[in-house]
């Protein structure tokens, strides 16, 4: 056994469950003073959850956390901050109307003996702090006028000013320009030299090689390996990250692919995606891969009329259509199972019946008067077919597990008899059993001639289910693979290429 004093932070066999689903399983992690330790894994591998366990936002269901060799329990982020741990998330949390110096010392302003804020001291200390970090910022600038990179610097300065010894940076470079990234790395190296320990999360492998000392890889919530970065090749890293043999969990049958059901040409929506073109055929499952935020959901919403596109054309069965609302989309035989079940897929406080019948409610009514028996029997048959597990039809949707909720959303959309089905993260956050059921259903629907567009951040799912794969990055389609061509490495590479490397 190692001497615990060796590490500033040590996690041992951390397990975390959300409503029965294990999202972290026996994860161990160690961090030394004066190192940059990269945390690597696919979307949903458990990186963010692990970070939240470290900062006390989540409490682990099993395992221990040691800080400087002593076991600790953080009940909330305040505790961890007191212990010298600071996290800088993708969403920055500065007060937009306070200036740089005020933001650094917010809540801890130096005061005069009379209890008033000692402004002179505040600016002097902010000045000293920033220059010790080698950062040049106008102290009186309001945070809302700072660039993302500058805001990050302020957050880092704030963390240093509370004597944080452990800094966690969650995808800090995702929205920075190359020059800004260089500035950030200079700062991180400086902090490392001064003995800080840094946990660095990024999807860009090149950056990790440039900056990090060691890397820990997570996969499906489980610990894979920890290696010094100079001993592991890029290909090996990708293999560690995704290297799971694809089981027959994904039963996509070979289906005779029919004529084009949906064609999208040069589709754009200002600010979210540009020049997206693809074809989707009957009986085909088209996978759409990419990182979270690559614009895939926006494309789906645009096609479905929730956020109509600002440019480009959409053709359904060869006819150009202009869909500006989901009502129209449903009329054209489109159905969209959204990514966010709670917010967009379901009405959680209402009954299973009301949820399933919602899109087709008019067809269970005569001149607007609801025909209860017709609605009930139709919904019952659909719930039966989807094997929804609940005590009865009048249970509220929010009382069900994630998997059963997803079955209800699927039942609801299948009752519209769609010809084109868009599934956005169809198996996110649901148990393995339901996941297999959803995959079997997709395969069956494709065999019936339904055209399916599947957005998924889970690579094995994309590879297992798709006939063809599109990859999106930063609002554009960056690659297009046939089932035979597609590999996890190729998809990851197309989804994560550093800005400017392509085009």
């Amino acid at each position, binding site marked *: 056994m190692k001497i615990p004093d060796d590490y500033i932070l040590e996690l041992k066999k951390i397990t975390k469950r959300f409503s029965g689903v294990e999202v972290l399983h026996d994860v161990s992690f160690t961090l030394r003073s004066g190192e940059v330790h990269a945390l690597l894994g696919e979307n949903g591998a458990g990186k963010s959850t692990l970070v939240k366990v470290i900062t006390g936002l989540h409490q682990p269901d099993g395992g221990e956390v040691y800080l400087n060799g002593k076991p600790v329990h953080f009940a909330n982020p305040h505790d961890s901050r007191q212990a010298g741990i600071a996290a800088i998330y993708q969403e920055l949390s500065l007060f937009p109307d306070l200036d740089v110096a005020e933001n650094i010392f917010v809540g801890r302003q130096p005061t005069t003996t009379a209890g008033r804020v000692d402004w002179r001291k505040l600016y002097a200390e902010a000045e000293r702090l920033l220059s010790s970090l080698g950062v040049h910022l106008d102290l009186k600038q309001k945070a809302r006028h700072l660039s993302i990179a500058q805001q990050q610097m302020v957050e880092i300065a704030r963390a240093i000013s509370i004597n944080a010894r452990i800094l966690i940076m969650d995808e800090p470079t995702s929205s920075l320009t190359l020059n800004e990234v260089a500035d950030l790395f200079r700062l991180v190296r400086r902090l490392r030299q001064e003995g800080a320990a840094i946990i660095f999360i990024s999807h860009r492998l090149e950056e990790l090689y440039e900056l990090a000392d060691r890397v820990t890889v997570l996969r499906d919530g489980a610990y894979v390996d920890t290696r010094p970065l100079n001993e592991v090749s890029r290909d090996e890293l990708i293999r560690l990250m995704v290297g799971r043999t694809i089981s027959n969990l994904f039963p996509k049958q070979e289906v005779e692919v029919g004529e084009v059901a949906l064609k999208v040409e040069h589709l754009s929506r200002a600010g979210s995606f540009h020049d997206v073109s693809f074809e989707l055929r009957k009986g085909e499952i088209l996978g759409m891969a990419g990182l979270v935020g690559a614009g895939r959901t926006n494309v789906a919403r645009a096609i*479905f009329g*929730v956020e109509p596109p600002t440019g480009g054309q959409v053709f359904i069965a060869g006819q150009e259509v202009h869909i500006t*609302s*989901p*009502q129209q*989309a*449903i009329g054209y035989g489109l159905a*969209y199972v*959204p990514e966010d079940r709670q*917010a*967009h*897929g*379901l*009405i*959680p*406080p*209402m009954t*299973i019946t*009301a949820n399933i019948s*919602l*899109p087709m*409610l*008019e067809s269970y*009514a005569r001149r*607007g*008067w*609801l025909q209860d028996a017709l609605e*009930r*029997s139709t919904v*019952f048959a659909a*719930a*039966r077919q989807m*094997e*929804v*597990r*609940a*005590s*009865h*039809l*009048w*249970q509220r949707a929010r009382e069900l597990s994630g998997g059963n909720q997803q079955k209800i959303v699927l039942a*609801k959309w299948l009752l519209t008899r769609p010809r084109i089905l868009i599934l956005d993260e169809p198996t996110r956050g649901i148990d393995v059993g339901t996941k297999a059921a959803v995959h079997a259903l997709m395969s069956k629907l494709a065999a019936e001639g339904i055209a399916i567009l599947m957005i998924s951040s889970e690579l094995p799912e994309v590879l297992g289910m798709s006939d063809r794969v599109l990859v999106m990055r930063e609002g554009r389609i960056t690659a297009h693979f046939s089932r035979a061509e597609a590999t996890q490495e190729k998809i990851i590479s197309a989804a994560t290429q550093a800005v400017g490397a392509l085009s």
Partner: protein
Amino acid sequence: MKQTPLAPAETQVTNLINEFAPRRSFLARFQRWEWMLVGLIVLVVLLNTQLSPYFLDALNLSRTSSDFMEMGLMMLPMVFIIITGNIDLSVASNLGMCASLMGWLFMQGVNIWVAAFAALLLGTLAGFFNGLLAARMKLPALVVTLGTYAFYRGVAYVLLGDQAARDYPEAFTYLGQGRLPGTLIPFSVALFIVLAAAFGLVLHRTTFGRYLYGIGNNENACIYSGVPVSRIKLIIFTLSGFMAALAGLILAARFGSTRPDIGNGLELSVITAAVLGGVDINGGVGSMVGACLSLLLIGLMRFGMGLLNIQGQVQGVVIGLLLILSILLPNGLVQLSGVKRLDRRSILAVLVVVILFALFFGFFFWSRAPVLIGG
């Protein structure tokens, strides 16, 4: 007891889902807010018959019932609006504007029925305008109708200034003062009952009503499911405008005159009645029966207190306390039943409920004390 016949092939999956909910126990079925209101109504009736011999007088009840019908007419669409999670603060001002337009036109020599029709049209348009801003422009209904609350009342003053329109023909005042032939039932009460039944059926038996609950519980999910959310909102605000105008005609007919401040402040009574009736101010929950029961309760309480010469302002205090209690009491009970060990919060909640209860009854009896003692 099997409620659905199963095909042989399906028998191995019997534990999946049942078509029917299990019957609820006798007691459980009484755990509804509507029954609580029924209990309160019975209590108020019993108390009042003890306190005043005039309470159960048929003629008195007939007279007083029409006092609450304008409120009731505006409450019907308000229930729709609150269930969708919106609010219409402009109803009483709209009522005032429409009644004033009618009065002004009548004074210009226009036929009263033509003037009344113009008022209904104006009210509907005013409601449509609220709907346009709230539904199509997606502005918050609270702000939109707060604006038109001031705007519509202002128009009423512009139309009538400091004068009052009066001397309406008897055929018109029948709307507010008349009774159904051969009975003691006021015309306005009959109209309210018919409309309440219609609104109730729409809310609980049609697709439109289902959409209202859907919007109130999760507007986004409704949009994603193809529900015409903004058209539905436009319809209910327009309906609210029409009903406000109708209420304006009836109020003007009951008074026999119109002043520009007619119906001032009524919007809050309307909202109070709906919320006391169990319509959740956050949307998604409520029933028409509950709202109508609550209107009846408020009416009976005000009538009873009026008989005992309790001032209107004092009546307001009592109704206000009742409203707060109606929200606190169920929450307090839920908190109590879920509490395993007494923490400071639950003790505080119980204390607040007890104090409010004491205040409510204390005030109720104190304000009646002179009557009780004096006989």
